[in-house]
């Protein structure tokens, strides 16, 4: 396909020849001018290269800052990383959820937005994430970021044994359909074996694209 001018391009080239003849600074402005064509009276000045425009339809992706759980509870969401031992650094406060900052954001076209929260703590008791153990299909979850809001609908609740998550890419990976993945701990609780033995994983799928939040 390299270098095949169609008839249209040939016509375009002919047209261009008449349009630009006589108005060219050549060789970077060394002064060589081509013969002026009739009607071309002005020497063209160089125009600044225009920066290409970002398409207006595109939203800039943003990490979540707040989540509204199916029961209406709104929690702050903090961006968190992974500790040296591989554990997700979920905030200790049961009223603050942790979004894994390496994952997908509102506005990304694919992948998981992983938002985890503590089911309980000795100091605070049961937390709002405990309600996820009773999640049902179709319930609404809302994510908010600085400028965006996106609605999701619960698609599944899975019980996953405490085991290395590298074998469960659907929970955290950048691949696959866009989804919100909510994780908290789930029974059974065996103190002699480290406490909660399972993770409850709620997957919710977007009901539409992210919307810009009102002023």
């Amino acid at each position, binding site marked *: 396909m*390299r*270098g*095949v*001018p*169609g008839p*249209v*391009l040939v*016509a*375009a080239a002919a047209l*261009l020849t008449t349009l*630009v*003849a006589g108005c060219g600074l*050549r*060789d*970077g*402005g*060394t002064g060589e001018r081509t013969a002026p064509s009739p009607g071309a009276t002005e020497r063209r000045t*160089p*125009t*600044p*290269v*225009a*920066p*290409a*425009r970002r*398409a207006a*339809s595109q939203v800039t992706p943003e990490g979540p800052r707040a989540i509204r759980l199916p029961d209406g509870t709104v929690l702050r969401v903090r961006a968190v*990383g*992974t500790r040296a031992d*591989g554990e*997700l650094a*979920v905030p200790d406060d049961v009223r603050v959820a942790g979004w*894994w900052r*390496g*994952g997908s954001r509102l506005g*990304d*076209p*694919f*992948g998981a937005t992983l938002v*985890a929260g503590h089911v*309980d*703590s*000795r100091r605070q*008791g*049961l937390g709002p994430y405990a309600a996820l*153990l*009773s999640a049902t299909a179709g319930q609404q979850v809302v994510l908010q970021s600085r400028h965006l809001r996106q609605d999701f609908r619960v698609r*599944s*609740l899975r*019980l996953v044994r405490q085991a*290395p*998550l590298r074998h469960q890419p659907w929970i955290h990976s*950048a*691949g696959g359909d866009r989804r919100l993945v909510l994780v908290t*701990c*789930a*029974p059974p*609780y065996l103190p002699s074996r480290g*406490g*909660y033995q399972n993770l409850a994983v709620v997957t919710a799928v977007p009901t539409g694209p992210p919307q810009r939040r009102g002023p």
Partner: protein
Amino acid sequence: MRVGWFGVAGAALVLTLSPVSGGGAAERAAAPAAVSVVQAVPGQQVTVTVDGTSVEGGAAGVGDVLGPLELTPGEHALAFSDGSGSVDVTSTLEVKAGSTSDVVLHLPADVGGAPVVNSYVTPTGPIGPGKARVLVAHTATVAPADVRVDGKVVFTNIANGEFATADVPAGTHVVELLPTGQKSNPILGPIDLRVTAGTVSKVYAVGNPRDRSMQVILHSATLRPDGSVVPDTIRTGSAGLAADIPLHPFGPH
């Protein structure tokens, strides 16, 4: 199906344009800008000059990527010429210290329009694990387009001279360009786009679907990782207070 691909090696040509005067202390302190020149006008062999010096590599055919050129921050004179007058564009380019960008000579949306030049700043922000960044630019002789990736419309209504970017999972994706709002009869593709984790791929859609000259120019660069590590465990409970809550799993993964 793969159609109309140019294998473009990013580092084919390196030309350093130093200031004639040698530059002052301030200029030496400022990091140069890295500018690649993309020739996206089908059927033309174009000579590119920067500040009066021809860029090495001779006349560039469609799909050729010249550079990256190291330019001092500030204004530079650019000229594109095919020697016959069919392509004769002179421009000034303002570059910022340490920036990375592509300067693209391409045709406008209207058939028969004179070549135009746009610059695309490379989105060089750090990126998460397993992801690749894609910049799709509309530099073709065609009306606004949607971009479908793996069957999902990812970008809508991109006009000539516009672009959109997204972070996508690394791997091979099926990419199609469709007239905005349409679900079939792609203008370009489907093509296989293979993207590597930790890179940015700038994809320039070029040509004219009416004469079947649509093709893609691909120009890639490496990004810094954002430092994120995939978590291997999640421990989100310690008190045993949820031990007796009944749980009824449902639904697929």
